[in-house]
C-alpha cells in the first residue's frame, strides 16, 4: 500500500514536471524557473583515544542533499535526493540510507494552493503541529499526503491537511490530519488598520489516528489505547505601535505514549508573550507553562524522530562556543519557562554612546519544574492519570537559568568590540540524565579589526568558570577574512579543569558566486548540539572536514 501511494505520488510529480516543462519551453518560458541547492558535509575521521573519538569502518562519512525545484505560474514540483549511507557521527541509526527523501507537486492560483506529496507546515507556534527540516539535528518530520491552503475572503486563511509522517527512510503508519483558520480582524475593521492596530485570532485542530497495539501492564492485562488523539490550539496576537502581544493555549487529549510512561492525563501548553520596541529600545517578556505535551506519530517512539509538535525553548540560542557548551533542551513532560530581555542603544555623541553609539542587551531565562503528585491506578503508572499538577504549581527543581549581559561598542571606524558576561545554571541530570547542577560564570570578549577594505581580523577570547562537571574551560579564536573569497580560522577550546584536552580547529573557506567550500582539520568535543530546544548528541571526533554548498 505504502509503495503504491509512493508510486502514485512520484507519477504525479513526473506528470507535473512534464506538464510544466512543455509550456515552459514553448509559451511561458519566462514563467518557469528551475532552482535548487547542493549541500555536502564530509568527515574523514581519525581515532583519538584522548578525547574518545572512535574508529570507523569507513574512511569517510558524509551527509549529502540535493534539492531541485521547478516553479511555474500554476504548478510547482520538486524533490530532494539524500545520500546518508555513511552518515556523520551522532545521528540515530535509522538516519542511514539514501534515496528520494522528499518530493511534491503543487498547484496554486490566486488565493489557494493544493500540494500532493511531502510538505511542511506549522500551526501557530507549533504547539500541536510543526513539521520542519533541520539537517544539523537529522530532523525531517514532513508529512506525505495532501495539503490545501485557501484564502476564501479578505482576512481569512484556511488550511487543511492529512498525511503520514516521515521517519528517516519510512513513513509512520499513523495518519496525522488537521485544519487551521486564522482571522485578521484588522482587515475587516478599517479603523483598526488606520490607527496601526492589528488583531489576528487563530484556531487549529490536529488529530492522530494510530492503530491499536498491545502494551501490557501485567501478565494478564493490556492497555485500552485511544486510537484517535485530538488536539487543538487557540491564539490571539495584538499589535499596536511598538507593542506586540501574543497569547496562545493548546490542549491534547489522552495520548498514552513512551515519553509520558503510558499515562492518560491530557496535556496542555499555555504561553503569553509581550514585547515593546521603539527606536533604540526593546523589551521582551515571555512565560510558558507546559504539561505532558509530547505528541508523536508513533506512541512507542523515543529519540528525536516522529514529533508532530514543537515546544520552543524560552532560552537564548547562544552562538559563542562556551556560552553554548551547556545548551538547554525543552522538557516535553512539563515545565514553567520565563524569559525577559531588555535592549537599549545609547545614541551617538552621548556620554555612554560615544562617537559611534553603544548597544547593551540583558537577557534572563529561567526554566523550572512544576510540582507534581504521583497518582497511580491499581499500583501501576501505566494506565493511570500519572500525576496531578495544578497550573500554578512550582516544584523544587530548576532545569535551567541563564542571565547574560552583552555590550556592543564600535570604538573607531575600524575597531568593534563585543563583551559578554553570563551566569548559567544547567541541570545536567534533568537534561542529560546524570551530572547534577552545573553553575558557571562565563566571560567573553570579541574584537573585530578592519585592517583594509579587503582584510578583516576577528578574535574571540572566552573563559568559563565552574567547580562542577569538568571544571573550567578556555576558548580562543582568530579569523582572517580576505574579501571577497577567502576566510582562514584557527581556534582552540581547552579544558582547564579536569581533562586538559585541547579541541583545536584550523580551517579555510573559499566562496565564489553561489559556491562555498570549507575545509578544516581538528577535534570536536562530545556534547549536545541544540536548535530551538531540540538537541542531538554528537560524539567526539577528530579529522578532516569538508563542506560544500551550492545554490542555483
Amino acid at each position, binding site marked *: 500500500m505504502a509503495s503504491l501511494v509512493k508510486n502514485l505520488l512520484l507519477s504525479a510529480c513526473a506528470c507535473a514536471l512534464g506538464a510544466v516543462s512543455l509550456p515552459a519551453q514553448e509559451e511561458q518560458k519566462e514563467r518557469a524557473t528551475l532552482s535548487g541547492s547542493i549541500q555536502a558535509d564530509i568527515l574523514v575521521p581519525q581515532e583519538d583515544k584522548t578525547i574518545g573519538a572512535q574508529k570507523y569502518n569507513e574512511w569517510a562519512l558524509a551527509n549529502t542533499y540535493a534539492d531541485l525545484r521547478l516553479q511555474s505560474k500554476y504548478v510547482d514540483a520538486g524533490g530532494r535526493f539524500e545520500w546518508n549511507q555513511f552518515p556523520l557521527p551522532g545521528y*540515530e*541509526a535509522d538516519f542511514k540510507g539514501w534515496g528520494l527523501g522528499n518530493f511534491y507537486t503543487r498547484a496554486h492560483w490566486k488565493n489557494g494552493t493544493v500540494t500532493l506529496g511531502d510538505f511542511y507546515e506549522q500551526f501557530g507556534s507549533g504547539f500541536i503541529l510543526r513539521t520542519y527540516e533541520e539537517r544539523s539535528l537529522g530532523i525531517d518530520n514532513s508529512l506525505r499526503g495532501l495539503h490545501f491552503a485557501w484564502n476564501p*475572503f479578505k482576512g481569512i486563511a484556511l488550511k487543511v491537511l492529512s498525511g503520514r509522517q516521515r521517519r528517516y527512510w519510512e513513513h509512520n503508519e499513523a495518519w496525522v490530519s488537521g485544519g487551521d*483558520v486564522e*482571522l485578521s*480582524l484588522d482587515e*475587516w*475593521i*478599517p*479603523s*483598526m488598520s488606520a490607527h496601526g492596530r492589528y*488583531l489576528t485570532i487563530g*484556531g487549529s*485542530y490536529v488529530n492522530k489516528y494510530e492503530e491499536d*497495539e*498491545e*502494551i*501490557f*501492564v*501485567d*501478565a*494478564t*492485562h*493490556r*492497555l*485500552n489505547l*485511544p486510537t484517535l488523539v*485530538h*488536539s*487543538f490550539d*487557540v491564539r490571539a496576537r495584538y499589535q499596536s505601535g511598538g507593542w506586540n502581544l501574543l497569547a496562545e493555549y493548546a*490542549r*491534547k*487529549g*489522552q495520548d498514552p505514549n*513512551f515519553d509520558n*510512561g*503510558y499515562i*492518560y492525563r*491530557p496535556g496542555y501548553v499555555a504561553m503569553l508573550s509581550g514585547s515593546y520596541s521603539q527606536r533604540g529600545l526593546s523589551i521582551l517578556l515571555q512565560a510558558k507553562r507546559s504539561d505532558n505535551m509530547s505528541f508523536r506519530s508513533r506512541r*512507542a517512539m*523515543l*529519540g528525536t524522530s516522529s514529533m508532530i509538535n514543537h515546544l520552543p525553548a524560552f532560552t537564548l540560542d547562544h552562538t559563542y562556543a562556551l556560552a553554548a557548551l551547556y545548551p538547554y533542551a525543552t522538557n516535553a513532560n512539563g515545565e514553567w519557562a520565563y524569559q525577559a530581555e531588555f535592549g537599549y542603544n545609547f545614541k551617538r555623541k552621548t556620554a555612554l554612546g560615544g562617537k559611534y553609539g553603544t548597544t547593551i542587551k540583558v537577557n534572563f531565562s529561567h526554566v523550572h519544574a512544576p510540582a507534581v503528585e504521583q497518582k497511580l*491506578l*491499581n499500583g501501576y503508572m*501505566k*494506565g*493511570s*492519570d500519572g500525576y496531578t499538577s495544578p497550573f500554578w504549581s512550582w516544584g523544587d527543581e530548576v532545569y535551567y537559568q541563564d542571565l547574560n549581559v552583552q555590550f556592543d561598542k564600535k570604538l573607531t571606524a575600524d575597531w568593534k568590540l563585543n563583551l559578554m558576561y553570563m551566569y548559567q545554571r544547567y541541570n545536567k*541530570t*534533568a537534561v542529560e*540524565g*546524570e551530572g*547534577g547542577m552545573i553553575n558557571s560564570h562565563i566571560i567573553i570578549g570579541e574584537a573585530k579589526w578592519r585592517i583594509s577594505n579587503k582584510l578583516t581580523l576577528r578574535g574571540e577570547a572566552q573563559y568559563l568558570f565552574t567547580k562542577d562537571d569538568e571544571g573550567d574551560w578556555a576558548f580562543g579564536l582568530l579569523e582572517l577574512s580576505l574579501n571577497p573569497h577567502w576566510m582562514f580560522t584557527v581556534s582552540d577550546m581547552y579544558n582547564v579543569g579536569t581533562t586538559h584536552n585541547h579541541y583545536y580547529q584550523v580551517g579555510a573557506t573559499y566562496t565564489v558566486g553561489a559556491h562555498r567550500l570549507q575545509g578544516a582539520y581538528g577535534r570536536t568535543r562530545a556534547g549536545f548540539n541544540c536548535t530551538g530546544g531540540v538537541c542531538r548528541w554528537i560524539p567526539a571526533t577528530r579529522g578532516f572536514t569538508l563542506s560544500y554548498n551550492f545554490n542555483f
Partner: protein
Amino acid sequence: MISTIRRQLAKVTTPSLQGRVRGGSVCVLFLCLLISCTGISEEERYIYMPPVQSAHAVLIEDFTGQRCINCPNAALEIEKLKEQYGADTIIAVGIHSGPLAVFSRGNVLGLRTEEGDEYYEHWKIEQEPMGYINRRGSLATPDQWGTLVREAIQVPTDLKFTLAPVKDSLDNKLHVHMIIVNGDPIKGRLQLWLTESKITALQMMPDGTANQSYVHNHVFRRSINGTWGEDYTAAEGEIRDLDFECELDETWNPENLAVVAFIESANGVEQVAESAIIIQ
C-alpha cells in the same frame, strides 16, 4: 473592545460571512468540548487477556549503566516480569555498557566491561535503558518488554538444556558441563555468559540522586566461550555433551555467580537457561 469589534464586523461583513464565522466559532467550541470531555475512563483502561502457557524461557538483555537515571525502572520491570512468569522463565542479563556505564577506577566499583561495550556497539544502542527480548525483532524500551515477553514465551521449542557450573573451592576456575537435547535440526550459535548478583555499587536514581547502596542483580561479567559464542549445528534428536572452562576474577563473589546459556538462530534465541554456580 469586543463589542466594538462585533459592531465593526457587522458593518463590513456580509450576512453569509458572518454565518460562516459563527459556524467556525461553534466548531472550535465543539472541538474544545470534544477534547476536554471525551476519553477513556479509569474503569475502561485495562483489557483482560487470558494467561498464556509458557513454552519457552525468555532472555532479556538489559543494556544499562550506573549513571543512567531511568535504568533502575528497567530493573523493576524485570523483577515484575520474574514475579509474573517465574524466575526460570525470565532470564535477565544486565549489560553495563556505553557512555552511561562506569568502569572500575580507584574506589569506584564500576560494572562496565569491554565485552559489554562491544555488544552495545554491535546492536547500535543509542539510549539506555534498552533491551533485547530473545533477540527477536528490534531493540525495545522497558515499556514494551511485557508485550514482547508474552509473545516470546508462547513460541514452542523442543530444545532442552541441562547446565552444571562447578567451581572448585581450591582454585578460581569454573567448569561448566552442559547437555543439550535437540529436537528439530538446528544451525546457530551457542553462547555462555557469566553473571553476578547482589553487587552493592553506585547507581544514579530516577530522582537524580546517587544511591551508593544500590544492589545490582544479574550483571554481565564475562563471556565463557568467546564474546560471540561458537557455531552450533545439531541433527534432529541429537544429544550433545559439552564442557567449558573459564577463569574467575578474584573480586567476584562465587556464591552470587550464575551461568546463562542460550542458542541463537536466525529466528532469535531458541532456548535459554540459567544455573547458579555450585562450589565444591
